[in-house]
């Protein structure tokens, strides 16, 4: 085994955190640079994996296996297939830019970066894990740093928001854990290795119930609508980088779990439940879009729009076709960086104006043009404009899910209009129009670290918008084993009456 690339990618932030622990808290600049270097290494390695992954060979590459808890067949098994590579890249981008987005934090810098790096580490771990137990460990490991990040460095209702997040996510985790137990004992082959479990044939009944259990657990993390109440508060309450990673990466953990675990292991269950998931997805898209429209607080609006956008992913997941699933995964990436950008901008404006109420800002484009342009790009990406990564994501989802759930797909697509409506309204009210308050006239524009955040993310948004096949091929390669287990896609299921195209 050569250099453990995946482990290094995952653990670089953690090692950074450990190094920071040894630095005196007063050396703030040193701490920040350590964090930047740690996440930078992670990013570099992730990019290396994107190009180093052998598409022709496919499968899990860069794998590392060490026995961990043989009694349960638990291994430390990390590796990367196309999906993992993509999402590790996402995590690395958000982690790296998150460090710079937090550069301005002055309060308890040392603890802040330790927490942030720990969170990045946990998120990356989820995407790299190919052992179910390990995956769950990383999954749950992320909760505590999230809590601390929000509760200590957050704003508005931070303690409430942090607690709500912790409770909801733990609830999801508990359900997932139960599902993992059941699947482990039902399989009865004494392994948590996803590759081996995927080879095991579960009976139809088992698949149906285990899929339901696991997906329910993961659905809290996504979140899918009736279980989403934690998200707007958490995303709003979190500090800038916290919101970035929450919206950019954490939201993907649950949906990733659905694909990686629930669908891969229980394809028949997925088929049975697909209509339900699809309906919920569309509810997510439309409902959250309307709720976002009704928000007065910029971050609440972005948070709700995230739910709406993840609805597209979930719809793609429900459709279970190649294009739809690939679109869903591409949406992870696209929405991840785009939401990170939007939250970064919301944070930058908040840092300057000390308000997040949309109506209280206005005309800021004159004062901070760079931030305005970045926000515009973020919003337009969110609207799914071609040329941004989001377009390909949404388009693939639509193409893939339209034949399966025509009616639902139409409803979901209507979301692009609503999104445009509230996103552009936000730009208009925050950045356009005459400067509303005189005291905002002398606010500074983007500082150098803001430039880093904005330019790195925008680079990826546009690059993946123009050259999507770089990631799309990786995703497709990663999806092929998962799709192999799925039956031929067909319209309808038991909700065929909603369809009717064929």
């Amino acid at each position, binding site marked *: 085994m050569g250099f453990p690339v995946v482990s290094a990618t995952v653990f670089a932030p953690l090692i950074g955190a450990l190094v920071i622990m040894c630095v005196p808290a007063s050396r703030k600049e040193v701490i920040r640079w350590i964090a930047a270097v740690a996440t930078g290494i992670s990013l570099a390695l992730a990019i290396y994996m994107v190009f180093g992954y052998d598409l022709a060979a496919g499968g899990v590459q860069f794998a590392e296996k060490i026995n961990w808890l043989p009694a349960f067949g638990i291994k430390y098994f990390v590796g990367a297939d196309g999906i993992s590579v993509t999402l590790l890249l996402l995590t690395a981008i958000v982690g790296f830019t998150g460090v710079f987005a937090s550069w301005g934090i002055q309060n308890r810098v040392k*603890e802040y970066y330790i927490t942030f790096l720990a969170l990045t580490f946990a998120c990356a771990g989820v995407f790299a894990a190919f052992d179910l137990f390990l995956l769950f*460990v990383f999954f749950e490991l992320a909760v505590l740093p999230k809590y601390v990040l929000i509760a200590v460095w957050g704003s508005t209702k931070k303690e409430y928001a*942090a607690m709500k997040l912790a409770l909801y996510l733990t609830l999801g985790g508990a359900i997932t854990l*139960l599902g993992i137990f059941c699947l482990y004992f039902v399989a009865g082959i004494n392994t948590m290795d996803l590759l081996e479990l995927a080879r095991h044939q579960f009976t139809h009944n088992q698949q149906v119930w285990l899929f339901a259990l696991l997906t329910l657990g993961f659905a809290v993390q996504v979140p899918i609508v009736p279980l989403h109440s934690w998200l707007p508060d958490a995303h709003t309450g979190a500090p800038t980088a916290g919101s970035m990673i929450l919206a950019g990466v954490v939201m993907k953990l649950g949906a990733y779990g659905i694909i990686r675990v629930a669908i891969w292991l229980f394809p028949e269950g997925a088929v049975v439940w697909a209509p339900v998931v699809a309906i919920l997805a569309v509810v997510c898209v439309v409902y959250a879009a309307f709720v976002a429209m009704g928000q007065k607080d910029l971050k609440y609006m972005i948070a709700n729009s995230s739910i709406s956008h993840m609805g597209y992913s979930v719809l793609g997941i429900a459709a279970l076709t190649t294009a739809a699933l690939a679109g869903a995964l591409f949406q992870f990436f696209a929405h991840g960086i785009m939401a990170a950008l939007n939250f970064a901008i919301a944070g930058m404006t908040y840092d300057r104006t000390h308000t997040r109420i949309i109506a209280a800002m206005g005309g800021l484009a004159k004062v901070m043009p760079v931030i305005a342009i970045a926000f515009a790009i973020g919003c337009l990406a969110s609207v799914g404009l071609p040329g941004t990564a989001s377009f390909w994501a949404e388009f693939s989802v639509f193409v893939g899910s339209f034949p399966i759930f025509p009616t639902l797909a139409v409803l979901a697509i209507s979301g692009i209009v609503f999104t445009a409506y509230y996103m552009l309204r936000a730009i208009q009210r925050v950045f356009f129009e005459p400067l509303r308050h005189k005291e905002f006239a002398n606010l500074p524009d983007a500082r150098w670290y803001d430039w880093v955040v904005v330019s790195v993310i925008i680079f990826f948004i546009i690059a993946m918008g123009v050259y999507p096949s770089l990631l799309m091929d990786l995703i497709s390669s990663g999806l092929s084993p998962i799709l192999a287990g799925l039956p031929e896609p067909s319209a309808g299921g038991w909700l065929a009456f909603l369809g009717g195209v064929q």
Partner: protein
Amino acid sequence: MGVGLLLPEIIACIGGLLILTERLFSKGEPERKDAAWFGAGVLVIAGVAALRLLGVNETAFQGSYRVDDLAVFFKLVAVVAGAITLLFAPDLLAQRRVKSGDFAALVLFAATGMMLLPSALDFITLFISLELISVSFYVLIGMQRGEVRSAEAGLKYLLLSGLASAVLLYGMSLIYGLTGSTYLTAIRQAFSGGEWPLLAGIGSLMILAGLGLKIYLVPFHMWAPDVYEGAPAPTVAFLASGSSAAALAAVLRLFGESLAGLNGVWLPVLLVLAVVTIALGNIVALPQTNMKRLLAYSSIAHAGYILLAIVARSSAGTAAVMYYCFLYAVTTVAAFGVISAFAETSGGEIRSFAGLARRSPFLAFVMLITLASLAGVPPLAGFMAKFAVFAAAVQSGYVVIAGIGLLLSVISIYYYFMVIKAMYVDEPVEATPITYGWGTQAALIIGLGGIILLGLIPWPLLRLAQEAATFARF
């Protein structure tokens, strides 16, 4: 082997006697901490002796005493819990005008009881070991001079424990009357036919109630919050970790082994009570404002989790119980170590944890990890333990019960994280940095290391537990 089988207990007991003797001949200033550390050393030696008994598997004293890996494992729990407690205890006791020698001697005697109990194979040994633990704890709880809460807690524990002993004895007497023996193996045979009178069921329930007090089984748990609050933190540390572990060992022996034939009676009861225990512990912990009370309810909830593994009635379940006991002991002791280091002066109010991260980052970090472990954040020890327990329950088919348990455990996040919030978010009520002795520091480092390492490298201990669990019969 003969007396060699009793070596750990003898070492602990003699250590206690030595300390008492020394107390008699010295003026014994309260500041002296050497007695406690001597006690810790004695326990370490006892632990080594116990380790040497691994794999021995011998029955002695005409079938009333057995040393097998199961027993040794619980002996180790007692030793670890006692030793760590004795490391940090004197720092607090010195402030409280309690001679650390007195404390150490009693801890050693209690530890003796805890080491004997898992080996006890007849009612008499079992009962007397249990009472040794109880009586030691009456004193340990109530010995804090000038602190009326301590005495109140002691009296409450004594009265309830006494009543529980009476019920336990009554139940034992009924079983004895019905089987004609106090030996667990003989009782097992007597009930192996499957036919038994209702009175036997009543007897087993009374035994369950009597032992239920020690293992925080609802509704026999009522003493716990008051005692936790009133007793000195080191006492509670040892009580929460060692006493319940030993009692659980007794439960495993009694119900798993001798009353196995009566499982039609006690199994459903335990099943329901386990869920009730988890629910009540977690729910009542929510409105608590005192850290020690909160941990009491948390102990109750955790007892519920462990019971799930007991009702699993499998080798994996037994292993999970043992594993849980060990990890829970380490975690709890660390938690009370932190409380003992500074919060005891305020009676352990959560308020006093405000801003701890600024007053003492180390203490706050230990508490953070401890609480996270209790809350089941992977990959800390608490998570691994919970994982083993619920896995055992599911493996035995209790999917719904395990699911309810897991969902109820979500509630616990709230109160654990509230404390974390207090430590890391709230402004400190007083800004003075906290000082503590190196004993405390050592204890906390050991606890912290245990929580993290046993979580990251769970395999050796779990394997030990699994191998030991093969000695339990069902």
